[in-house]
């Protein structure tokens, strides 16, 4: 486990570093590495769309199959040829981002607990994707198809399932007939349909799914693929001839790498590798994991069933049901198995306001490990300790930059489970409680460990999403900073500049009237 932990941690750091490099030109919303799942779906839709056209022009006779596809590349290069190239290169792109997605999710330990279902349902997708991809190469029935068909059946024959070797179907030129391609087409359509069904299952427990990446990312990607299709169109090799071993082959290594690997090793080794790898992926989440954090708890007396937590929960862990004590009212219900323990729900609850006069602040939905009451007490304590001319409260995120390093006499820091846990009213409370400015920092866009936390926080504080920061709060006294675990320095710099700006503009920025809940009962 230590070796695994070291490997995973290093991979996580590497991935985060590369993602941050990509953030520079792309920004978080358009960073392909932060949206690998959506990218995979995008490639899949391109494959499906272009495949429909290829299907309409394909002649499934043994004489016609090679020439009908070849016609597209030569005579109809401007349409069919481009679509064929897009079909192939999108398949390669799909394979690439699918495997990157797998490694990224593993590196970020997104495979256990509330993510168990998504992980488990993702593993069969790999088999289906390669099944569909390899079969697709056979349809062209060129030398590459011949090589792949022979190699695949020889690999399958190693398993003790077939009474007669399936490789006998590709022994001699007269071994196959027209019916083979008809069956092949059905398989090549059927397996991707299964794949799409499996993708639906894979995404079933996630809300606000990015079925497609951002428009800018889609345009950039399709532009790159179109350019590639024009510069290097996908073409067929010479027609298959089972009486000859194909000479040098231009292999698609994204899809067909398994054939050379089998030649270099053995079918037994490959099956061991595939089955052991699959088993490992299935077993990984079942290995001992860090103790799960407490899940969100609904307080029936304070929940009015407004459903904001239900809307904001990234994992569909909250449903709305009839209130047990108040006829005609609703209440939030938490499914403990699905709860990510992020606290985004507590941040969304309209009752999570520190201005309430209760000594023990109770809200509709709360995190036992960091209740809004604890948060208010921490904030009040921090405010009372602040000194200096420009006093700043920093709300951070345990998954982002380390805000504790910023702690100073004039800077109080409070680290949250996720920045999404912060109810916007706490910003106003801090400013009215003596702070000159408030910094809220969370993960970079698209980089939230839990999903959506940084996005909901930004939208709430910029008054685009309920619960909103009240309009009376001057924007100049609030700073939103996206900072990952490697952004400690840039966060410190942003704080420095923010403090200087407030100090120099103090007279021109509105100051909210002071508020102390111990002396006032009204906000």
């Amino acid at each position, binding site marked *: 486990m230590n070796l695994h932990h070291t490997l995973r941690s290093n991979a996580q750091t590497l991935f985060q570093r590369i993602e941050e490099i990509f953030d520079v*030109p*792309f920004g978080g919303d358009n960073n392909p590495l932060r949206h690998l799942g959506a990218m995979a779906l995008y490639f899949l839709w391109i494959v499906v769309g272009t495949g429909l056209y290829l299907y309409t022009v394909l002649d499934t006779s043994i004489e016609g199959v090679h020439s009908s596809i070849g016609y597209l590349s030569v005579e109809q290069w401007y349409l069919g040829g481009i679509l064929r190239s897009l079909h192939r290169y999108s398949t*390669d792109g799909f394979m690439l981002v699918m495997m990157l997605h797998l490694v990224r999710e593993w590196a970020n330990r997104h495979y256990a607990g509330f993510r168990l279902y998504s992980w488990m349902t993702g593993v069969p997708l790999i088999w289906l994707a390669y099944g569909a991809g390899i079969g697709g190469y056979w349809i062209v029935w060129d030398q590459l198809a011949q090589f792949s068909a022979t190699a695949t059946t020889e690999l399958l*024959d190693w398993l003790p399932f077939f009474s007669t070797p399936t490789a006998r179907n590709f022994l001699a030129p007269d071994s196959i007939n027209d019916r083979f391609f008809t069956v092949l087409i059905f398989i090549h359509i059927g397996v991707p349909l299964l794949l799409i069904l499996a993708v639906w299952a894979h995404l079933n427990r996630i809300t606000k799914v990015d079925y497609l990446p951002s428009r800018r990312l889609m345009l950039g990607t399709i532009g790159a693929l179109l*350019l590639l299709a024009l510069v*290097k169109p996908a073409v067929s090799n010479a027609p298959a001839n089972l009486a000859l071993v194909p*000479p040098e082959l231009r292999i698609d290594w*994204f899809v067909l790498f398994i054939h050379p690997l089998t*030649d270099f090793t053995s079918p037994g080794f490959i099956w061991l590798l595939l089955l052991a790898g699959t088993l490992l992926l299935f077993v990984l989440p079942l290995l001992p994991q860090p103790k799960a954090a407490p899940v969100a708890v609904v307080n029936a007396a304070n929940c009015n069933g407004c459903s904001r937590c239900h809307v904001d929960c990234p994992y569909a862990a909250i449903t709305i049901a009839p209130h047990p004590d108040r006829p005609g009212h609703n209440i939030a219900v938490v499914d403990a198995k699905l709860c990510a323990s992020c606290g985004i729900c507590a941040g969304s609850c309209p009752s999570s306001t520190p201005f309430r006069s209760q000594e023990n602040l109770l809200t509709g939905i709360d995190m036992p490990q960091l209740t809004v009451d604890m948060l208010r007490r921490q904030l009040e304590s921090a405010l009372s300790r602040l000194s200096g001319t420009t006093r700043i409260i920093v709300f951070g995120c345990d998954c982002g930059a380390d805000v504790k390093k910023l702690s100073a006499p004039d800077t109080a820091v409070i680290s949250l489970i996720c920045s999404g846990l912060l109810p916007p009213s706490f910003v106003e409370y801090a400013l009215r409680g003596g702070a000159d400015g408030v910094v809220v920092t969370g993960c970079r866009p698209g980089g939230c460990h839990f999903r959506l936390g940084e996005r909901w926080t930004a939208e709430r504080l910029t008054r685009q999403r309920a619960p909103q920061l009240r309009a009376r709060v001057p924007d100049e006294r609030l700073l939103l900073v996206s900072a990952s675990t490697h952004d400690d320095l840039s966060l410190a710099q942003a704080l420095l500049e923010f403090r200087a700006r407030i100090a120099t503009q103090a007279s021109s920025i509105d100051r909210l009237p002071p508020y102390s809940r111990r002396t006032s009962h009204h906000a």
Partner: protein
Amino acid sequence: MLKPAAIVGQVILYGAFATFIGYFATSPKYHQIPDDVALIKLSIAHLGDRECRKRSAEELDKLPRNMRAPLECPRERSDIKLEVDIDGQPAFRTVMHPTGLYKDGVSVVYKRFEAKAGTHQLSVRMNDNLVKPGFNFVKEAEVTLKPAQVLVIDFNPDKGGLFFQ
């Protein structure tokens, strides 16, 4: 609005992505066998023989009319012994076992051999009933293999047993 540096960065990264996809979609080239080599594929699927016994008239009389088959044959099939020599040297020896839980299915073998292009003396012997000694099917021939040629060694009773294709 994108900054010029971001646009340049995106163009470089999209270009790198397209180049990466374009390169590994066809490269590096793969040679399955060396240029001066041919392939011999041994592929046989054959039901082994079985020892049948002729029923006596008394035995047949005891059977219901619809079951009076003159021969009583066991369900199990014999193993099949197979030997392949190339240029007088043993290239492959095996005993193929019948498939199926009751050992009543075909016996199969599938094997690839690489051979230098040129003329070779090929000898294949097969015994599909191991109760009897020796080999009841033998095929010997001098074959000339061209580079990259695939020569299939197969068995079909309708084609006279073992044959090269």
